[in-house]
């Protein structure tokens, strides 16, 4: 499969297979006026299979959210068809309004205007806790807002 080279933009690489659509939707790439590509199940030596997103434009991306969804992702910044920078991601200390707390007893279930905030509580296990009810979530897993 051939996807045209991008001139100035981003390549989000090493996305765990099956997660690319989640990032695509999070970045609202289905609504942008420039060229984008979501390539799924690309053979990968390291991951077996991976997803890749190519964005033919320089856009603002919240890298902490990408790190939360999948900290193994790398982002290549492309200028004049050349990769000028590689950004490695890590799990952020805090994410806000990325996933929804699913605990029906949590105050967020009845106070609809408050942010859903999660704090990193165990980096090794990639675990986050809802700041209100302490319900635990694994990074990147959960109902996305």
């Amino acid at each position, binding site marked *: 499969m051939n996807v045209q080279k991008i001139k100035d933009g981003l390549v989000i690489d090493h996305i765990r297979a099956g997660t690319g659509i989640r990032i695509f939707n999070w970045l609202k790439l289905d609504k942008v006026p420039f060229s984008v590509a979501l390539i799924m199940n690309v053979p990968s030596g390291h991951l077996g299979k991976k997803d890749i997103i190519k964005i033919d434009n320089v856009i603002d991306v919240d890298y902490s959210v990408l790190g939360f969804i999948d900290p193994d992702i790398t982002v290549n910044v492309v200028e004049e068809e050349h990769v000028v920078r590689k950004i490695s991601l890590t799990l952020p200390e805090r994410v806000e309004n990325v996933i929804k707390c699913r*605990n029906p*007893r*949590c*105050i*967020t*279930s*009845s*106070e609809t*205007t*408050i942010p859903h905030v999660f704090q990193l*509580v165990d980096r090794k296990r990639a675990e986050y806790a*809802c*700041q*209100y*009810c*302490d319900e*635990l979530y694994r990074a990147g897993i959960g109902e996305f807002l």
Partner: protein
Amino acid sequence: MISDCLERQYQEIYKERTVKGRHLIEPGNFTIDELDKLFSLAETIMKNPDSYSEVCRGKVLATLFFEPSTRTRLSFEAAMLRLGGSTLGFAEPGASSTSKGESLADTIRTVASYVDIIAMRNPKEGAALLASQYSDVPVINAGDGGHHHPTQTLTDLLTIRTIKKKMGGLTIGLCGDLKFGRTVHSLAKAMSRYPGNRFVLISPPELEIPDYIISRVFKPAGVSFSKMLRLEDVIGDLDILYMTRVQKERFFNEQDYIRLKDSYILDTEKMRLAKKDLCVLHPLPRVNEISPEVDSDPRAAYFQQVKFGMYARMALITQLLGCDGGKK
């Protein structure tokens, strides 16, 4: 030396701050030093209540109880009245604007304009933290669902400190429903912050303490613990026995309930196996897990605990309002 590694973080976070004006959302909001000062004040008030009978004159406490709780609400109100302050509030959600669809955040912003301090119980977990984010006055969590109940923990700690004269080096038995009991979880966390404490967890397998207490509280703090099935097998080792109610509906198998139910009922027969200075605690209300015959045993401290609860709340309100000078 403080055994909980989190203690250092709390110390760091709060080193620049005084207790005045702070919120109490969970027991860990106060450092060991701050707790010591609070308990010292509670003991001073206990010894000389008249000196503190006017310190909160002109101050108003709101008791916002979105779910019924006679004991805790009355304890807060009694505490404020005995400090010379006044109270207002409601005892059930039907009496609040939330029944008309108002958000908790808006209710809190409104009430905080009227009063100097708020004690709130709400069935939703995290409700107290939310309230603190929208309140200019101190918010005390009087219970947020099955999550935290920090003033019960203060009550338990003050009772232990007053009766045992120490907070460390104790063998603490937690008995009954250790899975769903928030008071047990808070007490386990709080007592793990003091050195040399050892826990004996007495429960049926269905109601064992959650794994996170073991992995996030006991293990990081190097706290020794053991799991037991029957109270009578271990009661002789205990300095403190914290009883909770085991409900039949918590068991998956009725035969297990029938086999074990009597083990979680404290009676005079089991008390005969216990140390002479055992201290029996219970967050109350009690149903049948402690036989009434045990009430007259001098080791039964659960009714004293109620009184300690009021003094703990008096000290807390006094400190959060910055009125802790006593009679000048």
